[in-house]
């Protein structure tokens, strides 16, 4: 059996408050596992411990107790980062560098160089739709473009695990949809994604499993379909059904003891509507 992409065991993080005897428990006895190839959504309100968990996983913050492993390797070890690409929330990069220079810089940090790095930079710029901006400085980039270059730098060394913290924050709906499509593309290629987002609709579209953190504790975890499905209800959607046909269905259902909970016309998602009118 293969090693989990992420394995967190009994993780606790306590922040002491300076000059006070009080302390803040940011994460309390958290255990979770993300299998390779999964898209895992880590959800929770502000201050629930999501970012702290991510930072501990990336070695940016030390754990008070517990262990974190990436593909079986202790994540506090720098070499485990070879497998990880990270996009923080609202990232800013060196604004005096161009998009190409930025990606080459991150590539060199990962031990890449030469033609392989140049090819990878061009490939990633095309993937995130910034091939025309290769020689433009990041100081003139919009927030969405910065997010895209952030995604490209996270992918530079072809990691097996992507950690994305609010990847669509500040991005317009079209860009947001593109990032969602990219996440699905990563999933198709077997890349594991740990996604932290407040956009629950988007999480629902791309995630296989979710974990919900609240006040530092994992209050709920499981496969998304099972978590959100209402077991005793069924949804049928008809096309071109006449009122008579619907009345017959309702009568039949009532005769069998079923209760009609809701009858309405389905709405096109606002995102789709927005994209159509702004196309």
């Amino acid at each position, binding site marked *: 059996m293969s090693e989990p992409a992420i394995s967190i065991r009994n993780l606790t993080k306590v922040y002491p408050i300076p000059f006070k005897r009080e302390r803040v428990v940011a994460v309390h006895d958290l255990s979770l596992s993300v299998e390779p190839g999964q898209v895992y959504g880590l959800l929770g309100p502000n201050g629930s411990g999501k970012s702290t968990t991510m930072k501990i996983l990336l070695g940016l913050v030390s754990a008070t107790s517990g262990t974190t492993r990436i593909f079986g390797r202790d994540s506090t070890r720098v070499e485990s980062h070879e497998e990880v690409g990270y996009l923080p929330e609202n990232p800013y990069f060196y604004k005096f560098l161009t998009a190409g220079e930025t990606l080459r810089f991150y590539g060199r940090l990962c031990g890449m160089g030469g033609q392989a790095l140049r090819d990878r930079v061009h490939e990633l710029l095309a993937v995130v*739709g910034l091939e025309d901006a290769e020689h433009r400085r990041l100081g003139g980039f919009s927030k969405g473009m910065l997010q895209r270059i952030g995604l490209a730098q996270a992918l530079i060394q072809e990691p097996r695990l992507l950690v994305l913290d609010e990847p669509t924050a500040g991005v317009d709906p079209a860009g947001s949809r593109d990032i969602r499509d990219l996440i699905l593309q990563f999933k198709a290629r077997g890349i594991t994604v740990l996604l932290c987002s407040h956009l629950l609709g988007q999480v629902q579209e791309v995630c296989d499993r979710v974990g919900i953190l609240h006040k530092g504790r994992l209050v709920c975890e499981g496969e998304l379909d099972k978590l959100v499905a209402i077991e005793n209800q069924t949804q049928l959607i008809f096309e071109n059904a006449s009122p008579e046909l619907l009345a017959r269905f309702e009568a039949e259902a009532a005769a069998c003891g079923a209760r009609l909970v809701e009858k309405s016309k389905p709405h096109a998602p606002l995102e789709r509507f927005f994209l159509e009118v702004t196309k």
Partner: protein
Amino acid sequence: MSDSPTTLSTPAAASLARHRAFSLVRIGALAANTLLDLIRQKVFYFLIVFALVLIGCSCFMDFIRPELQFQVIKDVSLGAMSIFTWLLSVLATAMLLPKDIEDRTLYTILAKPVPRFEYLLGKLCGVLLLLAVSTVIMGAMFSVVLFAKEQFVVAGLRHELGGNPAALAEALKGVYAGTFSSALVAGIIAIYLKAAIFAALTLFISTFASSYIFTVVISVAVYLIGHLVPMARDYCLSGGGGFVAKATVAVVALLFPDLQLFNLTDDIVAGNAIPLPIFLHTCGLGFLYIAVYTCVAYFTFAKKEL
């Protein structure tokens, strides 16, 4: 993004080198990136001010004796070089770490297989490269001005003493002795070392400082204390002060660099040679300070919660 999305290539992990605990390539990438970023922030504009200082002090001294003119040019130029390189080292270094943390760029760098000491070393090397380039440019500008002044004075002497070869030779000997010498190079290297020490020190302060201003203020305070250390030490060694004063001076002398050791300008202006052992001692001490401050910076940064 593109209408027809470009798909990612198949994994090419083979293109990645095996992780090394210490990599000069990563340090080089960080240093080059730091240097490029600082250069594009137009930090070299201060060289224009330096050039104006040089031109100013060389143009408005025709009323004093040539030997004195050379002394003044050297004194002002080396003093300006010392101040400018120090300022550059403090201001450029103080913002590196806080800015990377504020912009979360540090997260993306440390999320790559980059050890924290390599990050610090790369940043420091970038600033040291910037200081080296600045020092070389200022040294070159200074040399050009000094050479031009020398040629101007020589031309004047040839015109004035052309009929008396013996007197001319004697006068020229004095002029040449008062301009370029190996001591000048030693003095410029000492200026560079002092700025480099402050780059390492400022980097150390920024690992625990709460703000950019705090880092700059502490660095300036250390600069002032560093120049007062020898005075206080000499006072105590000559029998002045009580036990508390002596203990305080001992602690200060241990913690703060003795910056007067790097001030070779007075000797250079006076035309004295810098003995090789003293120069090597100064260099050795400079490297030691840099190494100590860098190590302390690493120990502070290694456990820093980001």
